[in-house]
């Protein structure tokens, strides 16, 4: 899969549970520094659960989640982000009791050289205009921008993005695509969950396909055409 360089993230034989339900059943994923990787798969395949397990939001896990030299499974939940990881959750997670500006400033810095607030407001002028309104008064697209912006501020160089385009208008989807490409060109490492395969195909270096809590296929960007039949079967499109 990868060159022999040590990957930034190495998930080995990861099993996860919600209470008694055994959801992830032995996942293996590797992400090298600077790569953009997607997790593809149908509804309920376990993509979100994979990201939540990495972040420690899902606590009941076995296996290994090696990030740089740390096994994330062994960390208390609030220490994971401080390894330099940013999380943009599926539900976006904008806090209703915080203003836009407070939402932006909320996550503690986890590394030096995070994007400055000034730069962020340049990048997302809508957010500046709505600086003082409650976070959840923003449109869906603006909330997604805010969810991404607040992570960039922290200096995290490894970013988990869970379906950032879900339910958004095409222009906004395009805008988010541009942002991801820009981050990629700046050397960020990105693990992206997507249902929108066309969108993912333009961005990612490699794709993992998930089904029923397992990784069932792995596709390099240059294999997309030859594997499209198999992919259609898995994604059910």
């Amino acid at each position, binding site marked *: 899969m990868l060159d022999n360089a040590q990957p930034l993230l190495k998930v080995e034989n990861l099993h996860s549970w919600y209470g008694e339900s055994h959801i992830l059943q032995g996942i293996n994923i590797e992400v090298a520094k600077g790569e953009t990787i997607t997790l593809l798969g149908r509804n309920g395949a376990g993509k979100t659960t994979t990201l939540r397990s990495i*972040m*420690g*939001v899902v606590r009941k896990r076995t296996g290994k989640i090696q990030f740089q030299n740390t096994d994330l499974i062994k960390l*208390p*939940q*609030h*220490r*994971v*982000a*401080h390894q330099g990881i940013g*999380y943009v*959750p599926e539900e976006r*997670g904008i*806090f*209703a*009791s*915080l203003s836009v500006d*407070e939402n932006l*400033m*909320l*996550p*503690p810095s*986890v590394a030096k050289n995070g994007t400055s607030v000034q730069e962020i407001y340049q990048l997302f002028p809508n957010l500046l205009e709505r600086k003082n309104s409650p976070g959840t008064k923003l449109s869906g697209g603006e909330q997604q921008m805010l969810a991404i912006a607040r992570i960039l501020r*922290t200096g995290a160089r490894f970013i988990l993005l869970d379906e950032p385009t879900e339910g958004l208008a095409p222009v906004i989807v395009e805008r988010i695509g541009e942002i991801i490409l820009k981050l990629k060109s700046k050397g960020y490492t990105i693990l992206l969950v997507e249902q929108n395969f066309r969108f993912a195909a333009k961005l990612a270096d490699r794709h993992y396909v998930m089904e029923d809590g397992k990784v069932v296929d792995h596709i390099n960007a240059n294999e997309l055409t030859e594997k499209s039949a198999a992919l259609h079967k898995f994604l059910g499109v």
Partner: protein
Amino acid sequence: MFEALGISPYQLYGQLVLGLINGSFYALLSLGLAVIFGLLNVINFAHGALYMLGAFGAYFALTLFGINYWGALILVPIGMALIGVFIERTMLKRLYQLDHLYGLLLTFGLALILEGAFRHYYGSSGMPYAAPKELQGPLNLGFMVLPLYRAWVIIVSLVLCFSTWFLIERTRLGAVLRASTENPILAQAFGINVPLLLTLTYAGGVALAGIAGVLAAPIYQVNPAMGSNLIIVIFAVVVVGGMGSILGAIVTGYALGILEGLTKVFYPPASAIVIFAVMAIVLLVRPAGLFGRGE
């Protein structure tokens, strides 16, 4: 104008000030209760007992160590905060995974133990605690004269309530607290140390109860039952204001204190129940409380 009703303005002002004093304590205590409930989801039944402990703290500081009122006003809240840290770390922390009821039962048990122990050693009659020299004597406002110490209590409680509100609603630490109240799991995913915040919040709430106890010592005397007399009213205030609402606890605390004072003037027999009548009405009309967000 009230003379027609057979009420002198002095009586009216007197009861208003008394209402404002009671309201100051209602506000300070329900504020702590609301902050604790908001973040920890624990209904802190021990709040009244901790208030009593604060008053005893001032009494012990003076009688055992010769530390005067001003010293107690600084040291007691610090000591109480440490007691709060101890209670949270060793006991409450274990209950977060369980139903609210367990936190309530634990703190109720703590209240019974504390109050029982103090009643055993100090009986049920109060011990006097003098107001500091600097705050003895009257304050003439022109239209009325009130004891200087009472004016001091009203001012200190207003300042404390405003500061707490400001801290929570207008500062970075407050934003972190609000976020952790709203979605603790996501806050932790961002790297916020929520367990530490829970400890600090409980300690802060307990410290507020401790300050209220010190402030109360010269007014109500130091009495093992002073907390249990108050806690039920405080719960009513929190329910009326809206569980977990900071502003609700403060405004309702003062408002109900004043309402109670006015009832003493206009219809004394109802003064003991007016707060609970308001609570019943609010629960019927607006179950989430006057300032509650509801579901």
